[in-house]
Structure formats: C-alpha cells, structure tokens
C-alpha cells in the first residue's frame, strides 16, 4: 500500500467515507477520462459504461490498495481495458452490429471507421492512451451542439463532462428523474443517429458553435447560484462545476474573449456567495453585504482573467457583465463603487440590445451617481408590465425588479448626499440609497429588491437581472 494510499485510507475512515473519497476523485477526473475515451473508443455509450465500470473497480481496489498517484490515468487505463474486454466478448457474437453502432472514427477526425470490431480491438491493444486536453473541448462542443435543445445541452454536459449522475442532475433542475433520463437518452441517440462528429469546430464555425457552450455553462452556474430551498450542497457543486468547465474552456481557448469573460463573471459572482444569504436564509442585497465575507481569491482570479482583455473593444455580453461584477468587486464598500463606470457599462449593454431589466439596473446605478431624481426620470419610460413579461420567473427565482415601485412612490430620504460620500465603516454600508434598500414593512413578506450589479441570472436570455 502506497504512502498516500495509506494516508487516504486512514483519513477516509469508515467505508462510507472511503467511498465518498473515491466518488469525489471520480467526479473530478471522470469528465476528462470520458472525453478521451470517446475519442479512443469512438462511441459515447461505450466510453461512459467503461468509466462507470472503472468506478466500480475503484470502489473495491482503492480502499484496499490506496489511491493511485495519478487517478486520471488509472481510470482511463482501467476503463479502456474494460471496454476492450467488452468489445472482444461482443465481437464473437454480433461483430457487425456493434461496429455499425459505433459513432466516431478513432483518432483521425477525417478517417473512416474501421469496418470490424476485431480490427479496433487490435488497434487499441497496444496503444498508449494519450489523454489529450483538447478532448474535453471536443466533448463540450458535442454536448452543446446546436441541434440539441438547451435543456439537453445542459443535461448532457453535466452528465458526460461533469460526471454527475442522472438523479443528481434531475434534482438540480427540479424535474423527475425519469424525465431527465429520457432527455439524456434522446440527446445521445440524436447525436448518434445524425452522425455528429467528435471534433473541435474550425475558426469559421465558432461564431455559431461557441455561444451555446457559453450559454450552457452559464446556465449551470446560474442554477447553482439560486438560493432555492433544499439541495444546498447540489447548488454549490453546480456552481463549482460550472466554474471548472469555464476554466477548461478558457484555458483551451485562450484567444476567445467571451470564454475569459464568462469565467471571470462566474468567479466574481461566486466570490460573493458567503455574503449572499443572511441567517434566516434570505437574500442580502449587494448594498448590505458584508464584504469581508467576499472570497478574495476568487476575486483575484476573476480580475486576473479579465485583465488581458481590458484594451480590447467591442466586448461581448459576458465580458461586459464581468466588468460590471469587477467594478463591484473592486469597491471596498457599496459607497466606494465606481457608479459612473457601471452606468457606462449598462449603456453598452443597452446599445447591443434593449432590455427593461438592464434599463432598470442602469437607472438604479444612475441614482447612486446622480441622485434619486435622475433615477426616477430614467425609469419613467418603463412600465411594470414590460419588466414582468421579460424577467425570467421560473423555478422560484426571487422576483427582483418586478417589485419595483412606480414613480408615484416617495423615496425615503438618504443619509448620504448625492455623489461620493466618505466611506461608512466597512462592515455594513449604512445609509444605503433609498432606491436600493427599501425594506419590506413588518407583516409583509420580504421581497428581493432591484439590485445594481452584475446579474446572477446570466442564462441565455436576460443579461444582468441585477441580483445578488
């Protein structure tokens, strides 16, 4: 038993602890392994089953022999061996049938499939399985193929890249397990029936192919960031998984500003996670969040990812939203926020597409900059109807700007004068703007307020639904 293995066994303790440890390693590594095996074996189901079998083996072997030093290589090698065993078994029974169902050509994207399983087994027998970083990219583009509906893209991504099991994915998206299982089965079948190729799109195709990948990852993050009741752990895992996928994407596509933008946005948003909920589990508005609880490492990484692109003009929507989040992250207190920059960024967003939710957020920021009158003026053109019809309300999202009062309501006087004021103590930014911190009256359920700042709801549709 190796040193690290012995240590792992000791620290893991009970059998349940051990299997959890194995599970967590698998969660981390299986996406990469599955991605490589799909290329090597040429078949999604075969690769998935092989990785699952490797997991079973790991559950018995690792607690006994210790965790391998390179779990990823162990999984890939074991899985491939299992797959070959299976192919050998099946080749004696229905060779052509199995071969006909293989999806992709091995390795060479332009090559034809080997015509017999026997030949495949021979080819793979001696082959060193090269775990290529690009494989995860291939898998991302496959899972997020435009012929699949967004729900299917997300489900497939979480399953094949995230290594999540169907029940977990179903729980995360609040659909019955059978529904989610069907969704995944259909998606895989569609890709197979249509002869989807396992490849990274060429430059010319990226404008069509990259956006669904970004949207899927951001959807997973948004789902993980929701403060709905129950499955709190699943939520955190989802956000972390989204960030992990975002890192893979950004690292493998260093020339894509929106990949960097999405990652930065997720990191900067996630940095606020600990400060978002109060003891009762209600959302804490940005203005009132304890900034000491913001994760500075996340912020640093987020700003780092954004920095190389700061000179580049014509930002995409993720980069803009990331810049909004960055503006908040840089401010020691709510009062210190660079509101001018934020208004500017909202202007850019609105130029690209008119959106009442963004317009409201802009008005709130304007209020911080120029006072409540300016904000109310900016809001005059917007009606509650146009807001509620465009704000996503699915899955119990806090209503957000829908609760915005009409222009007839008198704002509570602010303790601050217009413009910058000396920073209040860091812990609580007191004297919050009346536009932002309208408290629910006693007896009425506390509703979330329109918030300035980068939207958590960064899914496909609405950009910055100002949230927490």
């Amino acid at each position, binding site marked *: 038993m190796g040193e690290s293995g012995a240590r792992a066994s000791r620290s893991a303790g009970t059998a349940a602890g051990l299997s959890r440890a194995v599970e967590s390693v698998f969660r981390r590594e299986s996406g990469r392994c599955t991605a490589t095996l799909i290329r090597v074996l040429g078949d999604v189901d075969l690769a998935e089953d092989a990785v699952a079998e490797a997991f079973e083996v790991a559950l018995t072997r690792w607690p006994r022999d210790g965790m391998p030093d390179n779990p990823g290589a162990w999984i890939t090698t074991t899985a491939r061996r299992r797959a070959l065993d299976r192919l050998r078994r099946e080749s004696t029974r229905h060779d052509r049938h199995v071969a*006909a169902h293989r999806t992709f050509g091995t390795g060479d994207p332009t090559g034809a499939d080997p015509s017999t399983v026997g030949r495949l087994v021979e080819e793979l027998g001696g082959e060193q399985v090269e775990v290529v970083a690009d494989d995860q990219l291939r898998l991302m583009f496959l899972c997020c*193929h*435009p*012929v699949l509906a967004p729900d299917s893209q997300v489900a497939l991504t979480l399953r094949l890249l995230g290594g999540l099991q169907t029940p977990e994915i179903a729980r995360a998206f609040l659909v019955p397990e059978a529904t989610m299982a069907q969704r995944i089965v259909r998606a895989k079948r569609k*890709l197979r*029936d*249509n*002869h*989807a*190729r396992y*490849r990274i*799109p060429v430059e010319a*195709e990226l404008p069509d192919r990259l956006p669904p990948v970004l949207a899927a990852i951001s959807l997973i993050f948004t789902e993980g960031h929701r403060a709905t009741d129950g499955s709190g752990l699943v939520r955190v895992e989802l956000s972390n998984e989204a960030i992990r996928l975002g890192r893979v994407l950004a690292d493998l596509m260093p020339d894509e500003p929106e990949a960097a933008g999405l990652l930065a946005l997720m990191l900067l948003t996630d940095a606020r996670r600990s400060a978002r909920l109060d003891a009762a589990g209600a959302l804490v508005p940005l203005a009132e969040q304890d900034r000491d609880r913001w994760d500075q490492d996340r912020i640093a990484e987020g700003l780092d990812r954004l920095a190389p692109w700061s000179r580049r003009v014509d930002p995409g929507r993720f980069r803009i939203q990331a810049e909004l989040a960055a503006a908040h992250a840089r401010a020691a207190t709510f009062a210190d926020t660079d509101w001018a920059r934020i208004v500017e960024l909202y202007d850019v967003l609105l130029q690209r597409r008119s959106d009442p939710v963004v317009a409201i957020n802009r008005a709130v920021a304007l209020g911080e900059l120029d006072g409540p009158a300016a904000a109310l003026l900016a809001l005059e053109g917007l009606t509650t109807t146009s807001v509620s019809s465009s704000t996503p309300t699915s899955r119990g999202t806090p209503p957000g700007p829908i609760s915005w009062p009409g222009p007839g309501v008198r704002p509570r006087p602010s303790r601050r004068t217009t413009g910058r004021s000396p920073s209040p103590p860091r812990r609580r930014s007191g004297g919050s703007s009346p536009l932002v911190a309208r408290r629910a009256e006693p007896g009425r359920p506390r509703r979330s307020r329109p918030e300035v700042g980068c939207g958590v709801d960064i899914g496909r549709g609405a950009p910055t639904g100002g949230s927490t």
Partner: protein
Amino acid sequence: MAQYLLSVWHDEDYIDAFETTPPEVIERLHAQVGALNADMEKKGVWVFGGGLVPASSATVVRPGTDGDVSITDGPYAEAKEMMGGFWVIEAPDLDSALEWTRRASLACEGAVELRPFQDG
C-alpha cells in the same frame, strides 16, 4: 458517408400562396434553389430532390384485408403543415449536412427539416 432527408415544410397558407405568389418571387426562389442544386451536384452531395405539387393532389393507399388496399383522396395528414419538396443528400457528418440544410432554408426561404436515414 451518411444520407439525410432535407424536407421543406409549409403551413396552410402554402396552397393559397401557391396560386397568388407573384411571378418574380417564384422566379427568385427557382433561381436560388437551382443554384443550390447545381452546387450539390458539383460537390457530390446530391442524391435526389424536387418540388412537390400541393397535397390536395395527393392520394393515400392503405392496406386492407386479404391483400386489398383502400384508396383515399387527399393527403395522409389532415394537418396544417405540408411538405413542399425535398432533397436527399449524402454527407460525411451532421455538421456538413447542417450546413447544406442552412443553405437550403435560405434558398427556398422556408423551414427545412433535417432528418437522417437509418443506417444500412
């Protein structure tokens, strides 16, 4: 290589439109589709294709008992939608087929359904 069916679909306005479409529109569509067909043949993608007359001229034949069939006047589906025509193409993979479908949709200025044939 795999084969795909690209079918053009119209809603119920098609039959009316068929009669009343101005000749210059018809001419434009013919030219666009013709150019696409030529390119399909040139690229070795074309298997077969053509436009269909409206479904009102269709007939449905169903098996009955004892080797008999029944004959019904009209299309199979009393549906609002109708297939206006199709291509059968041969393409190496989905992305390639999808690109041809994109061009087909633009050429006939309508919805085109992409559907693969079963293997062998």
